[in-house]
């Protein structure tokens, strides 16, 4: 059983963060290169916040994170900023799938007790995810992932999964 641990400071955003707030649609008409788009991350939501993001930060959101457009740059731009995990009580499904496909771990959990800057530890073990707010010594229950999601994440994303397997199995 593989396990993965992510430690980092909580960076708080609100509820219903749509993909246009993560990266504006008008930016991707010029480039889809995540490293270039990263300069504009969260600009229409809170540009200052976007620019303050550092690698290993953990984005902690309210409900319905990633709603709106299914545009995948809203995930790759977060990855390009060095972030590998987003916590929210619920995600828009296209964002959730895009996250898995690009190796961004989406964790469904109650985020209400987490404050800006809290140190979080996220451990993914088998299908289960454990979240600990080490600053406050609080353990937070998180939804587990399906086996298919684990397979994709473990292989490094959907691209690597399909490059390796060439196809989906008939039963998952």
């Amino acid at each position, binding site marked *: 059983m593989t396990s993965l641990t992510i430690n980092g400071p909580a960076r708080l955003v*609100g*509820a*219903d*963060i*749509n993909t*246009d*707030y993560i990266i*504006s*649609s*008008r930016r*991707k*008409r*010029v*480039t*889809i290169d995540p490293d270039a788009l990263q300069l504009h991350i969260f600009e*229409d*939501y*809170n540009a200052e916040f976007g620019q303050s993001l550092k690698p290993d930060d953990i984005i902690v959101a309210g*409900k*319905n994170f990633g*709603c*709106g*457009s*299914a*545009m*995948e*740059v809203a*995930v790759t731009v977060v990855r390009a900023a060095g972030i590998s995990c987003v916590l929210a*009580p*619920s*995600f*828009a*499904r*296209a964002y959730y*799938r*895009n996250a898995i*496909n*690009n190796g961004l771990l989406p964790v469904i959990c109650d985020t209400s007790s987490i404050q800006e800057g809290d140190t979080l530890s996220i451990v993914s073990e088998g299908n289960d995810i454990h979240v600990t707010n080490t600053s406050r010594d609080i353990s937070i229950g998180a939804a587990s992932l*399906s*086996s*298919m999601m684990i397979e994709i994440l473990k292989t490094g*994303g*959907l*691209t690597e999964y*399909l*490059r390796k397997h*060439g*196809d*989906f*199995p*008939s*039963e*998952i």
Partner: protein
Amino acid sequence: MPSSSVTPATISEKILSAHCGRECRAGESVVCKVDAAMATDGSAPMAIDYFNKMGGKKLAEPQSMIFALDHYAPPDNPATVELQDRIRRFSEEQGNTLYDIGAGIGHQLMIERGHVKPGQLIVGADSHSVAYGAANVFATGVGSSDLAAVMLTGKLWFKVPESIRVTLTGKLPNGVDAKDIALEINRTLDPAEASYRTLEFQGDGAASLTFEERMLLTNMSTDAGAKAGVFAADATTTAYLNAGDDVGVAVHADKDAVYALDLNIDLDQLTPRLARPPVDGAAAEIVGIEQDLGTPVDMVYLGTCTGGRKSDLERALNVLRTGGTKHKRVQLIVTPASDRVYSDLATEGMLAEFIALGALVMTPGCGSCCGTCGTIPGNEKVVMSAANRNFTGRMGNAKARVYLASPEACAAAAITGEITDPRTFLEAQQ
């Protein structure tokens, strides 16, 4: 595994079962054959990149892969032209269908050009791909990587969703629009409840809706947070799709199918609604139009995959005719959803009427909806839009304030220069 005669099923469960080769029910994960897939110039370049990185050489099913250049129609800079040229080159190599700039919005073309039939499973790399559910299809929006998986394999994995039964009763009153139903659903339903679920529309009110009204409701099911929206197939579906010999396989929900939630809307009681511009990054508040009457309006936007079809523009024009003139401050933009809609407007004289009113008629496509082409509203300007989304910055200017409403309410605002109940004009007609 229980057979369908034993375990009643929703439309989503039946369509996914038919495409994964076994009976499946909500909560299971399955791999399904995908009947058709759509990507736009907003999503196809990235999908092509993923496809190449996956080792893709040939599309699994080129005949059912549809690309539409609709988000940047026309493009305003060389970098965007290059993104579109990559799509053109790829499609030429692979032999898949490409709708170039000016043909219209991909979602509209999927339905209009016969790519969608009852009983199918379709994905699109655009969140409003859910619109095809109006044709009794299980359709959902995906990202570019999932689309690339379909390009490579012709298949995709799905978690079978639970369904929410949305029962519509009665009939829409004059001046109240399918848009108002969608806004009412979005006002009532918590996105966290809708998430990963299908909205299955039922009831005599659903049956009374035109096909284009059904498309609006399935289109905006993603804005309610749902995975899909679906209607049963009936004579309205068959007549609209005009599919010729292959009419597809109509799928109905079993009487005792299990629903996660019930939502009932009495159309007789419904009144015009508005989605207000979001404040401080929060979700848009949806209110009755009476709460914001008199708010000055600077721009009126008629168009998009939600409000740019012929019937939408016809209903807006009906209100505009009653008013007679456009308010001088208001910039009125019309973006037909497709070249066919555009051509129908011309043939039937409506285009001339819009032009006489001082409307700017733009290239068929997504237009100003997400600020990637078309006219951009100025700082602090107020827009009344027939579109589906009004996130801050959505029309290309984070300092503009965008209200969402029905085409009729948008037209009423174009006449008076302020938020106005469209029924005032429609009642005057009677």
